[in-house]
C-alpha cells in the first residue's frame, strides 16, 4: 500500500506539488501583486496554522468556520466589556475541563448564538463524518480535540483506525481538488478582467476584425454585460453593447438576426453564449436497446466484443447506451440490422417516458417518422395493445415502416394522414403522443441550416400547425379511458411560441390540464414570458437545453384530458 494515507500524500506532493501552488503563482503574476500582497497557496498539514492573518487564502470550510467563530468572539469582546471577565473565566473553564465546549461557546456569544451553534453543528457533523463507522465515543472525543487544537489531525494520527485513515485520505483528496478548482476559477476570472485597451477600441468600426478578434470581443462584451453596473464605460448604453454582441454572434456563428433576437429574449447574454456554443457541439451518440429482442447487458456485451465502447446512459433510462467510440460503423452491425437496437438521441426517450404507455392500450403517435419513439412505445407495451403510427409525409413513412419491421414490432398500424384530419378516423385512444413538427432550434447541432433558414413567418406558421395538431390530438383521446386519457406534446424547439404558447392555447380551448411528466430533471416551463402570461400550471412542463443537460434542446408537456368538447372562454 505504500504507507499511511498521509505519507502517501506527502510523497505525492513532494513529487508533483499540490497543483495549487502553481495556479496561485500564475494568479499572482496575472494580478501583478507584489511580494507582500501576493496570494498564498493553502499549505497543507502543519504549515497550515502558520498562515498570517488578513491574507486572502484558500480556506477549507472547517477552518473558515473556526476563523469566523474567533472573529465573532473578538467582536463580542469589544461590544460587551462586561462579559469579558465571564468570557475569560469561561475560556479557562473551557480549557481546563474539556468537558462541554458547545455550551460554553454559545454562552459567550449570546448575541450570535444561533449562528455559532449552527456552525458548530456543521463542524461536529464534519468530524463525525471522519469516524462514521459508528464509534460515537471516539468521534466525540475527536470533535473536542478538533475544536481545541488545530493540529489534531496529526496528533490523533497514531490512534486512528484504518477506516478512518482511509476516510481522511479521501477527505484530503477532496479538499485538494476543491482548492485546485478554486484556484482555477480565480485564474479564469483574472483572465476575464476587462482590459482597458480593448475596451477603448470596442466600438471602433474602422478596424478590420477577424473571427478570432470578434470572438474575443464577444467574450469581452459578455463580461461587461454580466456586471454592467461596475464595468460600463459611461459612454455607451447597454443596448449598444447588446447590438454589438448580436452582430458579432451573427458573424461568428452564422445565425440570422431573428434567431439571435429570440435567444437573447430568452437568456441572459452569458447564458445565451453558452447555449449558442453548446448548440455547435455534437451530442453524444446514444442507442436504445430493443427490449423486445434483447437485454441491455447482453447488447452491451455483444457490442463490446465488436470493438464498440459503450456505457449505460444515466440512471433515468433502463434502455439507453452511450457510444463513446467504435471501430465498426454503429449503424451497420449485424445486431443493428437484426433490430437489437435503435440509434436515437437521448432527448427522444423523454416524451415516451412521460407518456408512460401501459400494456394493452390503444396509443396514437401523430408524427411518427422515423419511428424511434413509436418503437419505444411498443417496446414498453411489450408488443401488446395497438399503436397507430401516423405520418403525413409518404417518403418518411418508408423509414418508419423499415424501422418497425427491423425492430420486430408487430402491434403497429402505419397510416399516412394529415394529423389534423385524424379526428374523424380515430377516437377513444388511451394515450396520444404528439412530437410536433417544429423549427428545430434545439437540434442545431444536427442541422446547422436552422441557423439561417428560420424566420418569424416560419415560426408563426409552425405555431399554427402545432396548435391545430394539439387540438386534434386532444380530440382523438378518450377522456373516460380507464388507464390513460393522456396527451404528451413535445418539440425539439426551444422557442416559447412553439411550446408554452401552444399548450396555453390548448388549455383555453379544450378541457385538459397539465400534469407532472414524472421526469426527474429539466427546467420548468415559462409561466410568463416577455409580457405574455401563461397558465400557471405550465411550470409542470419541462424544458431541456444543450448547455445544461448535454442533450438536444427540447420541450415536453404532459396533458390529462378531463372531458370532451370545446371550451369557450368568457373572453371569446
Amino acid at each position: 500500500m505504500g504507507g499511511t494515507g498521509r505519507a502517501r500524500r506527502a510523497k505525492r506532493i513532494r513529487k508533483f506539488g499540490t497543483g495549487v501552488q502553481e495556479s496561485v503563482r500564475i494568479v499572482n503574476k496575472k494580478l501583478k501583486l507584489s511580494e507582500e500582497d501576493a496570494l498564498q497557496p493553502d499549505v497543507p498539514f502543519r504549515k497550515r496554522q502558520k498562515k498570517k492573518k488578513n491574507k486572502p487564502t484558500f480556506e477549507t470550510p472547517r477552518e473558515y468556520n473556526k476563523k469566523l467563530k474567533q472573529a465573532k468572539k473578538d467582536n463580542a469582546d469589544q461590544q460587551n466589556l462586561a462579559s469579558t471577565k465571564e468570557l475569560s473565566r469561561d475560556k479557562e473553564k473551557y480549557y481546563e475541563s474539556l468537558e462541554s465546549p458547545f455550551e460554553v461557546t454559545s454562552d459567550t456569544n449570546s448575541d450570535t448564538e444561533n449562528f455559532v451553534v449552527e456552525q458548530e453543528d456543521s463542524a461536529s457533523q464534519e468530524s463525525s463524518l471522519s469516524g462514521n463507522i459508528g464509534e460515537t465515543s471516539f468521534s466525540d472525543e475527536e470533535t473536542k480535540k478538533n475544536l481545541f487544537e488545530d493540529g489534531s489531525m496529526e496528533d490523533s494520527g497514531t490512534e486512528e483506525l484504518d477506516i478512518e485513515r482511509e476516510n481522511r485520505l479521501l477527505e484530503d483528496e477532496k479538499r485538494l481538488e476543491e482548492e485546485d478548482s478554486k484556484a482555477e476559477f480565480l485564474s479564469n476570472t483574472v483572465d476575464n478582467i476587462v482590459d482597458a485597451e480593448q475596451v477603448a477600441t470596442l466600438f471602433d468600426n474602422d478596424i478590420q476584425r477577424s473571427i478570432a478578434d470578434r470572438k474575443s470581443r464577444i467574450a469581452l462584451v459578455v463580461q461587461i454585460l454580466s456586471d454592467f453596473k461596475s464595468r460600463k464605460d459611461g459612454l455607451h448604453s447597454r443596448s449598444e453593447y447588446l447590438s454589438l454582441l448580436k452582430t458579432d454572434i451573427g458573424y461568428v456563428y452564422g445565425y440570422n438576426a431573428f434567431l439571435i433576437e429570440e435567444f437573447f429574449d430568452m437568456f441572459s447574454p452569458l447564458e445565451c453564449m453558452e447555449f449558442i456554443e453548446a448548440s455547435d457541439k455534437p451530442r453524444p451518440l446514444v442507442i436504445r436497446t430493443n427490449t423486445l429482442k434483447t437485454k441491455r447487458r447482453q447488447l452491451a456485451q455483444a457490442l463490446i466484443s465488436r470493438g464498440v465502447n459503450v456505457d449505460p446512459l444515466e440512471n433515468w433510462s433502463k434502455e439507453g447506451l452511450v457510444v463513446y467510440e467504435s471501430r465498426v460503423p454503429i449503424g451497420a452491425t449485424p445486431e443493428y440490422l437484426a433490430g437489437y437496437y435503435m440509434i436515437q438521441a437521448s432527448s427522444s426517450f423523454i416524451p415516451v417516458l412521460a407518456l408512460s404507455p401501459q400494456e394493452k392500450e390503444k396509443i396514437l403517435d401523430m408524427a411518427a417518422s422515423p419511428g424511434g419513439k413509436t418503437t419505444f412505445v411498443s417496446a414498453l407495451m411489450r408488443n401488446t395493445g395497438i399503436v397507430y403510427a401516423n405520418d403525413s409525409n409518404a417518403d418518411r413513412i418508408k423509414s418508419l415502416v423499415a424501422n418497425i419491421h427491423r425492430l420486430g414490432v408487430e402491434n403497429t398500424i402505419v397510416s399516412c394522414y394529415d394529423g389534423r384530419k385524424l379526428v374523424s378516423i380515430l377516437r377513444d385512444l388511451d394515450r396520444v403522443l404528439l412530437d410536433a413538427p417544429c423549427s428545430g432550434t434545439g437540434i442545431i447541432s444536427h442541422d446547422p441550416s436552422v441557423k439561417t433558414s428560420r424566420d418569424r413567418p416560419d415560426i408563426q406558421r409552425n405555431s399554427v400547425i402545432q396548435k391545430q395538431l394539439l387540438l386534434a390530438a386532444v380530440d382523438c383521446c378518450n377522456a373516460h379511458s380507464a388507464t390513460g386519457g393522456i396527451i404528451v406534446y413535445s418539440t425539439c424547439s426551444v422557442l416559447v411560441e412553439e411550446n408554452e404558447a401552444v399548450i396555453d392555447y390548448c388549455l383555453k380551448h379544450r378541457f385538459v390540464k397539465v400534469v407532472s411528466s414524472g421526469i426527474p430533471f429539466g427546467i420548468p416551463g415559462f409561466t410568463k414570458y416577455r409580457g405574455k402570461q401563461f397558465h400557471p400550471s405550465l411550470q409542470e412542463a419541462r424544458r431541456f437545453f444543450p448547455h445544461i443537460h448535454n442533450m438536444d434542446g427540447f420541450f415536453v408537456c404532459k396533458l390529462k384530458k378531463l372531458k370532451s368538447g370545446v371550451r369557450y372562454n368568457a373572453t371569446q
Partner: protein
Amino acid sequence: MRNLTEEELRVVFEKLAKFIGKDIKALVEDSNENYCFRLQKDRVYYAREVVAAAATNIARHNLASLGICVGKFTHGGRFQVHITFVTYLARLAKYKVWLKPQSEMSFLYGNNVLKGGVARMTENTPKNQQVVVFNQSEIPLGFGVSARSSLEVQQASSTDLIVLNQADVGSYLRDEDHFVGCGL
C-alpha cells in the same frame, strides 16, 4: 385491406411450408392470441386479429402497413417472402445454417455463403431446400436456398457455394425503398 382468398392463402402457405414444414398452425395460433393474414395492395401482412380489426379504420389508400409484412405477390401470381418475416421463420425453421463470424458481414452485403463461411448446418438438409441463416450468437441474418445437401457439403471445397442468398437483413440499409411493404 382484405382477407386473402382461398387460392392466395394456399400459395402463401405452400411457400411458407418450404421453410417451416407443415406446421403452419403454430404460426397462426399463438399460445394466447390468434394471428391472421391480410392483403393490402400486393403485400401480405401477418398481424394479431385485434390489430387487423383495428386497421379497418384506416382507408385503403392511407394504410401503409400493419403488423409484420410476410411478402408480396408478384405479377405472375407467385408469392415472394420478404426479409421482414425472417424472425418468425427462424423460430420455426426446419433447416438452419450457422455462419462463422468472419463471413457474416459478407452475407449481409448480399453475397452467397461459401463452404469456408459455414460453421455448422442442420443434419440431413437436402439440396434446393429453403434454409434460414444465423450467426454464431443465434441472430437470424436472412434466408436462402441450399445449393448442396449436408452430405455433399462435407466433400465440398472451401470455395464452393453452400447457400444462395435470397434475402438478408442488410437490405434494411441497401434498399429500404424497394422491399418495405409500403402500400402507398
